[in-house]
């Protein structure tokens, strides 16, 4: 379990920035809440009250966290089974993964879901250093076709099959 290791002198800049995200969402919400229209028939606290409460809470709690971090109380990163807690953050792998999800989004409509899914899977496996790569590509194609068949064909979830598989009947619900 969490054995207390003397925390390395991590600069908490990122943590403060993230807490400030909460503060700024709250501030933006407070500003935007003023323009929520109130119907004239309203007799209760109206549609603005709850937004004001929640956004104030965001500002206060976010500011509280910033104060805590400044006083040296940093957050405890979550633990997980496959996590190497001592490793440095691999920003490159993260950027690649995010990139492949974005690519997936733009491929769904023009190329069809199976193609987009195969690209996402093999791209993600490559980002995480799967070896050999050709194996990941084969798995991705098989997985994409199986999912398209099960969800699009059997379960009737309308995943676009795309121009390549348009004519194959069992890929369409």
């Amino acid at each position, binding site marked *: 379990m969490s054995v207390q290791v003397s925390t390395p002198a991590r600069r908490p800049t990122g943590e403060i920035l993230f807490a400030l995200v909460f503060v700024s969402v709250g501030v933006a919400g407070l500003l935007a809440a003023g323009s929520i229209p109130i119907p004239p028939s309203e007799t209760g606290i109206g549609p603005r009250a709850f*937004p004001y409460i929640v956004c104030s809470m965001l500002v206060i*709690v976010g500011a509280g966290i910033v104060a*805590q971090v400044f006083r040296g109380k940093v*957050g405890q990163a979550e633990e997980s089974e496959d996590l190497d807690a001592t490793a440095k953050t691999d920003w490159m792998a993260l950027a690649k993964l995010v990139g492949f999800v974005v690519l997936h989004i733009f491929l769904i409509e023009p190329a069809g879901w199976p193609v987009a899914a195969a690209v996402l899977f093999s791209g*993600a496996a490559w980002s995480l250093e799967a070896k050999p790569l050709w194996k990941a590509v084969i798995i991705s194609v098989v997985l994409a076709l199986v999912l398209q068949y099960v969800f699009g064909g059997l379960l009737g979830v309308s995943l676009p099959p795309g121009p390549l598989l348009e004519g194959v009947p069992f890929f369409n619900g």
Partner: protein
Amino acid sequence: MLLEGFSTALQPVYLLYALGGVFVGTAVGVLPGIGPAMTVALLMPITYALDPAAALIVFAGIYYGGMYGGSTTSILLNTPGESSSIVTALEGNKMAKAGRGAAALATAAIGSFVAGTIATVLLSFLAPVVAELAVGLGPVDYVALMVVAFLTVGALLGASVLRGLASLALGLFIGMIGIDDSTAQQRFTFDNPTLVDGIDMVLVAVGLFALGEALYVASKLRHGPVEVIPVSKGKNAWLSKEDWKRSWKPWLRGTFIGFPIGTVPAGGADVSTFLSYAAERKLAKGSNKAQFGKGAIEGVAGPEAANNAAAAGVLVPLLTLGIPTTATAAMMLTAFQRYQIQPGPLLFENQGALVWTLIASLYVGNLMLLVLNLPLVGLWVKILQIPRPYLYAGILVFAALGAFSVNFAAVDVGILLVVGILGYFMRRYGYPVAPMVVAMILGPMFEVQLRRSLQLSQNDPVALFSSPFAVIVYVSMALIFVGSWWLRRRQASLEAAPVKEELSV
């Protein structure tokens, strides 16, 4: 009524659905890093095409299967992680390392079955009674109940109170985006057509749980081969007479610790497993006591039973009041709402047939869990050994599939990605994600009830304390907070203890 439920749930087709649900639920739940809430969220698309009864049956199976799958992971994997099964890992992992993995899995499986069955019986009797009482509750009472649910989920259950509340507030904020339920005014939509309909719960849940977790693990992935503790086969590995003798009392105690804790909005499974573990540790005598920290079977049997009993207990407030008290329950509620099933006091009257089918399928699912799990241990071990790049690539594909199939719009996958990145940073900086999910689903209901109660009292806030029920709820909340403060100190000393023992060896 229950018999009618059984007559539906026992039809061969529905039995197959239950089997499928339990199987898939366990298989996904076994995957490392995937908790029960994420299992339900990820598997939501497979039920989209089913009729409501079949979907509920599949969900009942997934719910229990996901719960059980997590404990298999923590017993067999060298690096336990999930919070709800972490107590199981304490002793179960040690047992597996000592070559008693099969016995640990068996006592977990049978304990889950015993506890699940007893708890489902309690649920069948208690739920209709609570529903009848709940019909008399007014908006003021609901406000009180939901305040308790918010505070326990947000402030009690994480390492940092402020971070829990921040997560809660963000969930409340996202829940407000879209059209106000009471006045039909747009809020925080900025005239964007995607935002007018609000942000779908499935996107947020899958984004936070699946994508966020995948990104987080990817950023610090443990490379190299996966270490699974081998499960020894043979007669000696199975539960001995002695093991049975030592297990049955913890099973029962776990059940009666877990169920009540599940039913009150006080945190569900986590708290109950810890309490059960503490109780077993205290009650053990002689040589058994010395085994704690080194693989005591009571320390697996009790918490596992408590975990499952709490899972059934959580369904009481969910079905009768419509209030989810855990992230997993919030996911179940989302699933119900997709089928226009609105849990609450009127559920048993309006959709009695469906509810009783659901409850009957909980019995069936429990039995299937027992039948499936023990023979299939070899398969679960194989699943645990999936190379991690493929595993997390697969999770990404499934998350994207789940998000896309909500509305068949690619833009939803974009929202998923944004939420996923948010989930990544929340994990990195120690913000719990469960409060956000619960707040998002409970927030809009809370606002409706709050405004209704204030409207009735001409905006006099004192009215929020006017009903005796609400006062009782607030007082017990204060007691819960005092109790949890005490518990937390106990837990801290308990967590420090095993480390000390290891050092002294």
